[in-house]
């Protein structure tokens, strides 16, 4: 292999894929990047055997070839190299790098030892604007379960039907659902669960993606095509996502509209007082009286905040885990949010006042009184 490309492009490309590389894996080659000449450019791949990622940059190819080199060393050498162009000359297991001021040899492992990144033989492909995808992931992924006793809950459900994609995550204490409207309807229905960890990578890559991202789904893999040669393949979470629609409250006994910034800062303040009592805060909604956020701690003291609100329906006193509320308030869009409550022990809904495309359901805490 003998190629020449700009330091800038090469450095960006390496940064994009390097994070998937796992230098501490049992198999040493998983800490390497695979460099392959392809279509008049350089293809760079990394995998941890769960996610496989590939990107491509244009380069001047003098001789075709492929090899793998340790991700960390290559990335460090390229990112600290200040020259404009870099020449890469590879034999089977050695990469010689040359630029105006810097020379280096990096020992590698031959390309045939690198795991094959699976191709997704797609049953179904659809395209999503990257801004909507990024938003949908950021607004749901935090609600996935951390522990793996229920594997399906460690992923985010994508439910595609006609021109709607519902993106859903829950850890069984709260649930977030975002609806994406597609410009043109898809031909088929599909439901699949993507690991939360993968989606965090996807969100990281999205800023450099082209306007629309293509998602292809097979029975156990999904492929994100970000355009200009960057692709990510990942396994899907096996299993069936529970029917979550049954827990979306259909009615509302009390509805509370508040300015997001105000209620968020009141809850934040209360959470400082609730540190010792499992983040337990009380929300008191009195019709015509506004909203009261209360936190009491036997050790620390107590705190009461008044937030002006438009309240319709029954008066209510209800307790929540402040963290769960703050998680959602930090990502909900719009100036005003709306709480819909159905009594002390029933799921509560939090949503933006204007948009109908986002829904956050949270279970209140049962207080021992």
């Amino acid at each position, binding site marked *: 292999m003998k190629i020449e490309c700009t330091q800038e492009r090469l450095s960006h490309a390496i940064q994009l894929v390097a994070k998937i590389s796992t230098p501490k894996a*049992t*198999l040493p080659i998983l800490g390497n990047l695979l460099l392959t000449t392809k279509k008049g450019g350089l293809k760079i791949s990394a995998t941890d055997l769960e996610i496989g990622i590939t990107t491509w940059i244009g380069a001047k190819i003098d001789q075709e070839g492929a090899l793998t080199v340790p991700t960390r060393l290559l990335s460090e050498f390229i990112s600290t190299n200040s020259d404009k162009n870099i020449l890469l000359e590879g034999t089977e297991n050695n990469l010689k790098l040359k630029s105006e001021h810097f020379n280096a040899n990096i020992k590698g492992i031959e390309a045939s030892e690198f795991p*094959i990144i699976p191709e997704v033989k797609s049953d179904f492909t659809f395209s999503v604007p990257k801004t909507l995808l990024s938003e949908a992931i950021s607004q749901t992924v935090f609600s996935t379960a951390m522990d793996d006793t229920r594997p399906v809950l460690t992923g985010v459900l994508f439910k595609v039907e006609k021109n709607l994609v519902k993106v859903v995550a829950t*850890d069984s204490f709260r649930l977030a659902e975002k609806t994406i409207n597609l410009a043109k309807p898809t031909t088929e229905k599909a439901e699949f669960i993507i690991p939360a960890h993968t989606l965090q990578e996807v969100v990281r890559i999205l800023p450099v993606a082209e306007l629309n991202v293509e998602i292809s789904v097979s029975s*156990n893999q999904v492929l994100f095509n970000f355009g200009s040669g960057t692709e990510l393949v990942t396994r899907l979470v*096996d299993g069936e996502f*529970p029917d979550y629609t049954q*827990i979306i409250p259909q009615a509302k006994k009390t509805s509370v509209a508040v300015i997001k910034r105000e209620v968020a800062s009141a809850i934040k303040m209360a959470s400082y007082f609730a540190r010792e009592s499992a983040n337990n805060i009380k929300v008191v909604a009195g019709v015509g009286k506004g909203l009261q956020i209360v936190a009491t701690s036997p050790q620390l003291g107590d705190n009461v905040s008044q937030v002006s609100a438009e309240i319709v329906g029954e008066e209510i006193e209800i307790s929540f885990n402040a963290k769960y509320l703050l998680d959602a308030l930090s990502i909900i869009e719009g100036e005003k949010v709306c709480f819909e409550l159905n009594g002390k022990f029933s799921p509560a809904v939090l949503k933006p006042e204007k948009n109908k495309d986002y829904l956050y359901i949270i279970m209140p*805490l049962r207080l021992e009184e």
Partner: protein
Amino acid sequence: MSVENNMNPNEIWQAILGEMEVLLSKPNFNTWFKNTSLLSVDKNQAVIAVPNEFTASWFRKKYHTKIFEAIKKHCPILKIDYKIISPQVNEQLKTAFEIKLIEPPEKHPDKTPTSHNGLRADFTFDSFVVGGQNRLAYATALAVAQSPGVVHNPLFLYGGVGLGKTHLLHAIGNQIFKNEQKAKIFYISCEDFCNEFIYSIQTNTTESFKKKYRNVDVFLVDDIQFLSRKEGTQQEFFHTFNALHQKNHQIVMTSDRLPREIPHLESRLSSRFGGGMVADIQMPETETRQAILKAKSQARGWDVPNPILEFIAQNIKSNVRELEGALNRLVTQAMITNQEITPEFATNTLEGIIASNSHKNFDPSEIIAKTAQYFNLAVNDILGKSRERKLVRPRQIAMYIMRDELNMPFPKIGDVLGGKDHTTIMHGVKLITNLIKKDEQTQNHITLIKENLYSAN
């Protein structure tokens, strides 16, 4: 499915695994053959279960012929099919789903009671002497023991050696066990946790290791600072921690320093450790020390006069363990020699221990000598006037130790250091005092020099 010979698919696969393990390097074998199995085999084809698409592609490309030949030895097949079966699929996937209320953790009536897993019965709240320096730690520990998983989760106790961290940890375990015999309480020292984890990797039993720790109701970990630099164990501990914390199961840890001060500990861990309640235990004051001695001697049925206890309490200030040691030594010595414990007898018997506890028994010149020796310098380098950086820092450390250990006045330190101005000394001492808080290395230097000083006596 019919098998030609008497082996079932599982036996055939075990034979093949044995063969492949010989042919491949260990990392290769462990990476690719984990979670594989032979689902079925008949005259036409063998179906092999692989955990993911990566393994399927790799088998097709690299090991297909080898596996094919190996199976043929047992059963004449024509082809191999690979089927992806995620190892995670289990019963729970099928259970009906609902968003549940977050309530205090359930007690599990059907679980077998765990014996006092590693808990020392004599370490209880009753036998813990409370004083000003450990009241907070005591109160939080008691609160945790009364309602585990509810109030302070995780609870992080820290303090120097021999001040009662482990005592409180055991007391929590004992108390919870007393209240709820069926609670699964697990006490482990961090070092044992690390060793067990390493062992589970060696023997390929990480799954049962995980299961064991993620199913306890109360998890008590002693000396958590040993996680420092153990990345693999940190990762595993992180997951265990999350699994338990998610379920509101109580976690209590002890350490000799604050979470954020444990070196080489991932920040996601240190922030979690500090996420509940952090309580410190400090050296108790003389009165409490005396109360501790009183309690200990009563518990053992010894009759030691109060003035003697007071004498020990006043002279041994380093930690509670040494305090007890001194008491034990005194009583044993009295029994052996059949003497009454008088103040004279106590002074003579404990002379050695008290001397090493006193900070005032070495010479400033010794500090200078040991500091010079530690940094591989000549004593004259320390006393000299050169401003070379490699000399200045040791000189300042010597100043600091003189001030800290001997409480010498600044001008006096200046004199013994070869006639330096007292302002120079003040600056040096202040600089090191600040540096210790930030710089682990300086802290280590000083600890080691002090150790040298003490051991020389």
